[in-house]
């Protein structure tokens, strides 16, 4: 299933970026290039070979970690992508962590105070959170915490060489901007899932054993509620990755998203292709991990395998 998704995605990306527009070399050089230079570049890039052959050699290259050379920078794409990942991956993980923590807190609060003030407050907050665009929140965060309070830099990334502290500090505001929207959506999912599970018979059994409300929530309800929640988290990760592309641009973070972006401006199609493929791989990998997580959570699924 996951392999099929990856192959499908790679074919789509390949077809869209390399086959449809006709001559990629022309795109790279711009409309003013002479036919000779276009032909020379096309030959250098191997674009004059048949598409299937090029597709196979692309995938084979990816599998070996050989991504080819960037046309614009002349450096190996693998290095560019590695540098981008060093920012994007920690950012996505930090945002996912924040999302989960925020949503669990608010979602459980709302469910525990079902139809009371805490519920209403959490749901209103979540409704507003869903409506606020992440890049606007990012700008507001910069305005407040960087321009007004001067606690953080307005953007940029010092690199991991500057130390873990400063590097993480540069990722805090972007992660908050990314996490807010996702957490707003996840809060609703968690609330609904917890309320559903609280109606189950085994919750009453657990209470009859003498467990307090809180103990039942932690020991029985949450784990059962996690099953639908984890599904949504998998779907959300794709949005989170898309969100990093936007937020990296707000904060001038040299991540994968920014790399894709600059490469479009540089007409560096090969980099766009590889970087987007990698983003898709990240999404698919996370969903694969989530499938494994299901098996850990739910013994009923283990039996079926």
């Amino acid at each position, binding site marked *: 299933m996951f392999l099929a998704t990856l192959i499908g995605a790679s074919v789509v990306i390949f077809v869209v970026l390399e086959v449809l527009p006709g001559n990629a070399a022309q795109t790279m050089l711009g409309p003013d290039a002479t036919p000779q230079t276009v032909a020379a570049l096309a030959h250098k890039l191997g674009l004059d070979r048949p598409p299937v052959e090029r597709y196979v050699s692309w995938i084979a290259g990816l599998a070996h970690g050989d991504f080819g050379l960037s046309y614009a920078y002349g450096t190996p794409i693998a290095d560019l992508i590695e540098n981008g990942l060093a920012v994007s991956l920690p950012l996505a993980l930090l945002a996912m962590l924040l999302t989960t923590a925020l949503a669990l807190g608010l979602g459980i609060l709302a469910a525990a105070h079902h139809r009371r003030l805490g519920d209403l407050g959490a749901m209103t907050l979540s409704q507003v959170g869903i409506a606020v665009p992440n890049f606007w929140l990012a700008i507001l965060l910069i305005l407040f915490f960087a321009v007004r309070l001067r606690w953080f830099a307005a953007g940029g990334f010092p690199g991991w060489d500057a130390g873990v502290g400063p590097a993480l500090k540069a990722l805090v505001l972007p992660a908050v901007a990314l996490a807010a929207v996702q957490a707003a959506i996840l809060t609703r999912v968690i609330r609904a899932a917890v309320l559903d599970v609280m109606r189950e018979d*085994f919750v009453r*059994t657990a*209470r*009859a054993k*003498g467990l307090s409300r809180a103990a039942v929530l932690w020991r029985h309800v949450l784990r059962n509620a996690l099953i639908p929640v984890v599904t949504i988290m998998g779907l959300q990760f794709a949005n989170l990755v898309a969100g990093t592309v936007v937020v990296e641009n707000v904060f001038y973070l040299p991540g994968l998203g920014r790399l894709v972006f600059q490469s479009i401006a540089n007409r560096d199609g090969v980099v766009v292709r590889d970087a987007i493929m990698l983003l898709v791989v990240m999404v698919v990998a996370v969903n694969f991990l989530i499938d494994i997580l299901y098996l850990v*959570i739910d013994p009923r699924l283990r039996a079926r395998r």
Partner: protein
Amino acid sequence: MALLEVEELTVRLATARGPADAVRGVSFSLDRGQTLGLTGESGSGKSMTALAVIALLPEGARATGRVLLNGEDLLAASERRLCAVRGNRIGMIFQEPMTALDPLHSVVRQVAEPLRLHRGLSAGAARAEALRLLDRVRLADAHRSAAAYPHQLSGGQRQRVLIASALACGPDLLVADEPTTALDATTQSEILDLIAELVDEDGMALMLISHDLGVMAQNVTRTLVMYGGSIVESGPTEAVFSRLAHPYTRGLHAARPRLGVGRGKRLAAIPGTVPEIADLPPGCPFAGRCPLTIAACSAAIPPPLPVGPGHAARCIRLEAALTLPKAAD
């Protein structure tokens, strides 16, 4: 002092049509070693009574009166105190073994849970004790099944697990709410025999709730018949079933499914349906459905009138009721 004394218990529910009483002034008592049954149609208030005893009423329900366990009023107790009583002094078994166990925890862990909570046993000790309990409830292949998850067990086996967990801490009182209704007939009698045996061995009190008069007749020494939130008849099981003093008990008895009588041939089924609790008439709740209804029935809820030793029925037309035909056995 009796182990359990319920005095004037009333449970008020918030229904879609405003507050209504699901249990209306129920009183009874139960001693150690005794067995007591609550019977009646669904909606009679028997399950609400059971839930009030263990103080686990649904959200929005309010109980008044007194529920004394060893002299302590559970309706006035703090939630903290109740948590110390539930699963420890009172064990409870529910109707649906298929859904009453957490699907994500192994069976042995769910039996060990009250042991860790109330007895403070270590994980290892609680597990060892849970295994002993699973053996005692004769879970098939107990040592292997203990590590199993609920979905791997049959309904009857799951009910055994639930019994083991309810009895884990050696409670004074076992409340069993329709424990066999969801099971097939053979398994039903196995489970009921098991409960009877365990109750007898441990000298517990048993409060058994069932709509099935056959289950009452075979398993409890004292029977309470509930209708419309009230106890309409109470007495020693044998006396209740031989006299069938209250017209409702008589109707229930006649309506029970029997071997050899086709489903469509319920000659003496009770006319009408159980009214919603918000629609209960003033006076005797059975008025209107009862063939003996007279104007006076609706004046006030009849007091319990003596029928025999320890046997009473809330009916002002007891004499007339005794003339109603019994269903042929």
